[in-house]
């Protein structure tokens, strides 16, 4: 287990002070220099929706938004997020618990089984739906190519994404 990144300043470890905004909340924290953003979110902020699979940029489980764009939290140091705006999967549902259309579509279309890959995929698809209002299947699959899912075989993820597109377009 990674040790918490808070002070023990008598330890011979370098720390940095960072200020950032996470899911709309302003945060100021002292982090170990080598601490990854995903570990910071999970261990220090308790935002355990961001998962860590491979820790080297291959699986996409750790995908969050950094300044409005999807990114691998395992390939970002917490210190690099200083001054940034971070969004995690916890920000998708409304405060009253109403699921984001993508989350609802994943539920309706069996777009997840174990759910390990799901938070990262949701963040990537949320970016796609924001940037491309009517993505075709190949655009959806291209975004999904940045993610590994060991359970679903991807078909239901694509179906869920398409359903969310239809629903969002219908709502306009």
């Amino acid at each position, binding site marked *: 287990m*990674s040790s918490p990144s808070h002070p023990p300043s008598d330890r011979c*470890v*370098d720390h*940095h002070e960072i200020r950032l905004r996470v899911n709309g909340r302003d945060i100021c924290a002292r982090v*170990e*220099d*080598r601490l*990854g953003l995903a*570990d910071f979110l999970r261990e220090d902020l308790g935002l355990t929706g961001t998962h860590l699979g491979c*820790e*080297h*940029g291959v699986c*996409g489980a750790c*995908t969050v938004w*950094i300044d409005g*764009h*999807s*990114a*691998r939290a*395992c*390939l*970002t*140091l917490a*210190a*690099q997020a*200083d*001054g940034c705006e971070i969004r995690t999967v916890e920000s998708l549902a409304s405060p009253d618990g109403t699921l984001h259309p993508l989350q609802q579509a994943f539920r309706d279309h069996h777009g997840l089984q174990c759910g390990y890959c799901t938070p990262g995929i949701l963040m*990537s698809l949320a*970016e*796609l739906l924001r940037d491309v209002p009517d993505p075709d299947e190949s655009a959806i699959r*291209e*975004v999904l*190519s*940045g993610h590994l899912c060991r359970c679903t075989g991807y078909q239901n993820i694509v179906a869920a994404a398409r359903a969310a597109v239809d629903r969002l377009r219908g709502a306009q």
Partner: protein
Amino acid sequence: MKAPAFRYHAPRRLEQAIELAATLPNARLLAGGQSLLPMLNFRLLAPEHVVDLAKVEGLAGIDELPGAVRIGAMTRQREIEFSEVVRRRLPLLAEAIRWVGHRQTRNRGTLGGSLCHLDPSAEQPMVAMAMDAVLDIASPKGTRRLPMHEFALDLMTPAIEDGEIVTAVTFPQWPEGHGWGFEEFARRHGDYAIVAVAALVLRDGDGRLSRASVTLGGVAATARRVTDAERCLVGSRGEPAAVAAAAEACAQVPAMGDAQIPAGYRSRLARTLAQRALDRAIARTGAVA
């Protein structure tokens, strides 16, 4: 795994960054982190210091110059991908950049980071090689300019000293009406290319090719221009026999091999992809981007 312990620095001015890079022992520069962070997490590297260039002013941006486009080393691949200037003036780069990693990594990865990492199958060094790009390299002694073919020394070995920082890359523009093609084969989209080919051609008034550039990725230790292929094309009309001869020249470049991907397979891919990239480039000549 988690990265080993190091000390992180985030300078804001280039002079500070240069000074840190030149004076700190065992320091690594951090650009977008899409290659360095995996290497740290794998513990392939254990630097004492990491100098993050993200906050250094003036290292990112795309500038139009007469006859060239200058791109700051910290410009993210995403910005290149969506740049109207790049699409209009450097269509080969615009096409190749979409093969770089995935949406999620292009959002963070930078041009300068990729050139300095110098993976043999990376697309951005290929385009820099194909277009005879020139790198600006800053150090305590000032700035020197180095053409890409001198920068790419060997496998993942750029010609850069401790304390030097690549600040920008200038891509000389090909004339309007040139053709371009980029082809790549990987097991899955977004994986490192097994082989990739970049091609540029220019036709003169009577339909002959007056210029050609053919570059292989994933075959040699660094991106490799194939001058023999270029010679087959220049002076031809881009007819099938000339393209086939150029593709054959690509297959003759000594290829790296390993247990999974034997050299002979890379050579066959080089021939096939060169053929496709050239066909596409030739078909595009005369079109205005």
